[in-house]
């Protein structure tokens, strides 16, 4: 199972690619809404989270995730269950 730091690294690249920004802009306390250019891009990021992981993720789950660290914690918790 991946460590939280490994999950963060994966996520950093994933968010940067999805939003077309530098991965250096994606930090632990970065807010997803502020990384996104606009509401459409934020929605697309949430959709991408929904579709990426092996475990089941609902829109209602991802929409509560405010920061990158929130996503890391969520992913770590879900993967621990599997």
């Amino acid at each position, binding site marked *: 199972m991946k460590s939280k730091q490994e999950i963060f690294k994966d996520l950093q690249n994933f968010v940067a690619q999805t939003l077309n920004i530098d991965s250096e802009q994606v930090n632990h306390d970065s807010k997803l809404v502020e990384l996104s250019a606009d*509401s*459409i891009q*934020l*929605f697309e990021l949430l959709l991408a989270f929904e579709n990426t992981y092996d475990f089941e993720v609902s829109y209602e789950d991802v*929409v509560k995730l405010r920061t990158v660290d929130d996503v890391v914690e969520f992913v770590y918790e879900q993967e621990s269950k599997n």
Partner: protein
Amino acid sequence: MNAIQSTNQEGRIYTAIVKGAQKGILNLTNKELDNYNQLLEDKRGDWLLGRQAAKQVVVDFLESNHQEIDKKRIEIISSGGPPKVFVYGESGVYELNAHLSISHCGGVAAAKIIDKNDVIGLGVDLERVRTFKDETIKSFMSEQEYKTFLGLPTDKRPLFCTRLWCLKEAYLKALGVGLSIHPQRVEIWDTPDGVLVRKDGRPTTAQAKWTIEDELYILATITL
């Protein structure tokens, strides 16, 4: 310097649209400056435009109530929900009893304000007309909206998609919930009597308007 591109009053709503590159921090309170400094650098320009539009409509709103105030004595705080307006008046600071909604996009910002006694919610969304990804379209549109979309000629689709998104986003902002409600649960119907908004299959009392600005942007407004 920014240009206040337009201000107007329609009914009891005050609107300001601002365009241009922000040069310098104007009229920010210390708290607003803290918020500004926490933003990523490439987000600051549009954020400032939004603040400028917002403070302009607050000034217009107060002037209509025979109160003149300097923009430096207006503080707008957004902390996840709808923005709140605080006025540093002569007898102290108070929260303005008004709905304010701000939207900014690529060098343009719009803000609207209305008295809370007139409506229970206000939402504004400004987006540049664009092409959407197929997956995004299928995800945010209802079945009926998607059918309408497929029936359109290709060159009409970006405007249709952008308008639909703006109206849904404005509605969710008026509710004060943003994207915490999936946009697919909100449906936009065009009728001879105007735009109707449905949520979870039921009609709402939302009043919807939309305009095209500069032939490039959609500005949608929802009041509840």
